[in-house]
């Protein structure tokens, strides 16, 4: 178990290191932060001074080493735009993002899993077709299209809900629905196919053959097995709680981490972008770790594998 955890942690550190490196390379190759933050018309001396102040005049590998070293010491740098610590800027935005992504996660799980189970149990029925059509629509329609459609309908036409901003809790409703419906569609499809796979297994027939009533077969024999693949998808959704709302936050002008990221990338505000990416990578890695541990709880076969690999 300790070795299992150790391996996981080493892999997590490697993942985060790669993310940081990749972000650094892409951001630095795609534009000059000095020109983005100062205007291109700024005097050459001012730009040179800015470059010197932020270390941008040094060779790129030196900048990289300095940056990486700082991260290892827990320093994530300052925003080039307003000089405040990047981590503080990002932390301020986290509650707003969670205010829409957490309820959206509830919508995804609360709607998607029951719909998928129902569709699988009534395969090829009318409800199955309706659920699956909805699921396909839910994850093929891009969130900005769905978001704009909802704005047109509920904000512009009906005038029931605000179209954006963060004035009251009502402003959160449309972003939550936009995020939740797409995820629910994905989860419904995964749950349905996981259930169908499990319902075709011989042990389901065994349970029926020994006289277990059908509802108990579904609850006691099918669901615990179908939960294993479903947990993977839910884990992925938990991992994207921080970064999964970039587009939706932009559509609804929601002042969360996602919008901060868009603005920071546009400005080549390196430290802020890095900080957000680091946070995203960390949540992803953490949720993957939780999923792996949950697998062990749900599936005794994996538990013995982990035990066999760890002795």
């Amino acid at each position, binding site marked *: 178990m300790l070795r299992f955890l150790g391996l996981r942690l080493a892999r997590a550190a490697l993942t985060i290191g790669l993310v940081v490196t990749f972000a650094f390379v892409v951001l630095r190759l795609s534009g000059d932060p000095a020109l983005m933050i100062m205007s291109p018309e700024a005097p050459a001396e001012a730009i040179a001074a800015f470059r010197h102040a932020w270390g941008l005049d040094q060779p790129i590998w030196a900048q990289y080493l300095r940056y990486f070293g700082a991260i290892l010491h827990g320093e994530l740098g300052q925003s080039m735009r307003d000089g405040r610590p990047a981590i503080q800027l990002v932390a301020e935005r986290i509650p707003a993002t969670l205010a829409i992504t957490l309820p959206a996660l509830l919508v995804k799980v609360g709607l998607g899993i029951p719909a998928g189970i129902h569709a699988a149990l009534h395969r090829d029925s009318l409800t199955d077709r309706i659920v699956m059509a909805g699921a396909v629509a839910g994850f093929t329609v891009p969130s900005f299209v769905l978001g704009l459609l909802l704005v047109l309908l509920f904000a512009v036409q009906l005038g029931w809900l605000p179209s954006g901003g963060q004035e009251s809790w009502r402003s959160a409703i449309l972003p939550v629905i936009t995020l939740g419906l797409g995820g629910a569609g994905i989860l419904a499809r995964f749950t349905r196919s996981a259930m169908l796979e499990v319902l075709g*297994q*011989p*042990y389901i*027939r*065994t*349970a*029926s*053959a*020994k*006289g*277990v*009533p*059908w509802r108990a077969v579904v609850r*006691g*024999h099918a669901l*615990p*097995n179908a939960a294993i693949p479903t947990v993977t998808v839910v884990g992925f959704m938990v991992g994207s709680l921080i970064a999964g709302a970039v587009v939706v936050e932009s559509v609804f002008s929601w002042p969360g981490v996602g919008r901060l990221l868009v603005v920071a990338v546009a400005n080549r505000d390196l430290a802020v972008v890095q900080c957000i990416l680091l946070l995203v990578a960390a949540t992803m890695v953490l949720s993957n770790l939780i999923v792996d541990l949950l697998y062990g709880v*749900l*599936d*005794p*076969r994996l538990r*013995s594998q982990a035990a066999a690999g760890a002795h």
Partner: protein
Amino acid sequence: MEGGSVLRHGLPGEQLLPLTSADAVSMADTLVSIRDLRVAFGGVPALRGVDLDVRRGEAVGLVGESGCGKSVTWLAALGLLPAKAAVAGQVLLDGQDLLGASPATLDRIRGGRIAMIFQDPASALNPVHRVGRQVEEALRLHRGMAGPAARAEARRLFDLVGIPDAGRRLDTYPHEMSGGQNQRVMIAMALAGQPELLVADEPTTALDATIQAQILDLLRRLQAETGMALVLISHDLGVVADMCSRVGVMYAGRVVEQAPAGALFTHPAHPYTVGLLGALPDMVGPRRRLSAIPGGVPEPWNLPPGCAFAPRCDHASPACAAAVPALQPAGDRHLAACIRVNARAPEPA
């Protein structure tokens, strides 16, 4: 009932033969009586009128090539086929028709009166539950046992089916046990409801030869000890000859011959049975070339008219295509579905 009436004792076909005392007993002792059972998947027939009786306490073998409907017969009888299967006919358990029975009635019968074990024990047990719990579930459902009582009984059943270190084994998962051990768990689970009939669907096919013999010995011993009836579904004639007092031979969704095991192996009446036996090596006597049945089993959606075996039969005549031959007497308690049976002199009883 008309389709299966020739099977009932005392009906025209058998009135010619004197009723023996064994027949008189068996009349009252029929446990399960399958009549004209028909199953189709999406319009394609899998069973085309199966007639079969199982008496209390007897061991019946059901043989035939894969796809002939051996397993489907019993899955259909217990309502275990997927909803898309169209099932018609009668499956009488002590006179009660299972094919119209309510789900609650079926749940009491499955595992409680008729238990079933399957071919691949490793995948027939739920991988996420401990084996003891799976046995205890059957005890709870059919004998109302729970907690320590259920656990003690599960342990007794594990001992009974020969699982060593039963107390500890209750807490293992199926993947931690061998195939033979898993099949023993399946048998313990089947015994939990104290069934009157155990249907064993190719119970040893997925197991090693030595384990096969052990499992068959176990089934034989348990049948003798508990007095339950046994239906052994197998494609292995040797296994069936060894275990069963009566044998039914199936071909393309029908029972083509049924007889006491001894009579079937010494005087097979249906050309298909003759062919099956010809394909087996002899244990004694000179070595000879094994004979294979020419051709292959017809596809269920493309069956020939009349007798389904006619295209592969050495004795086929134009009359074979006229109608599907019904089972008719071919000796003492011996029935065969071949038009040539009538033409021959009955064998000595």
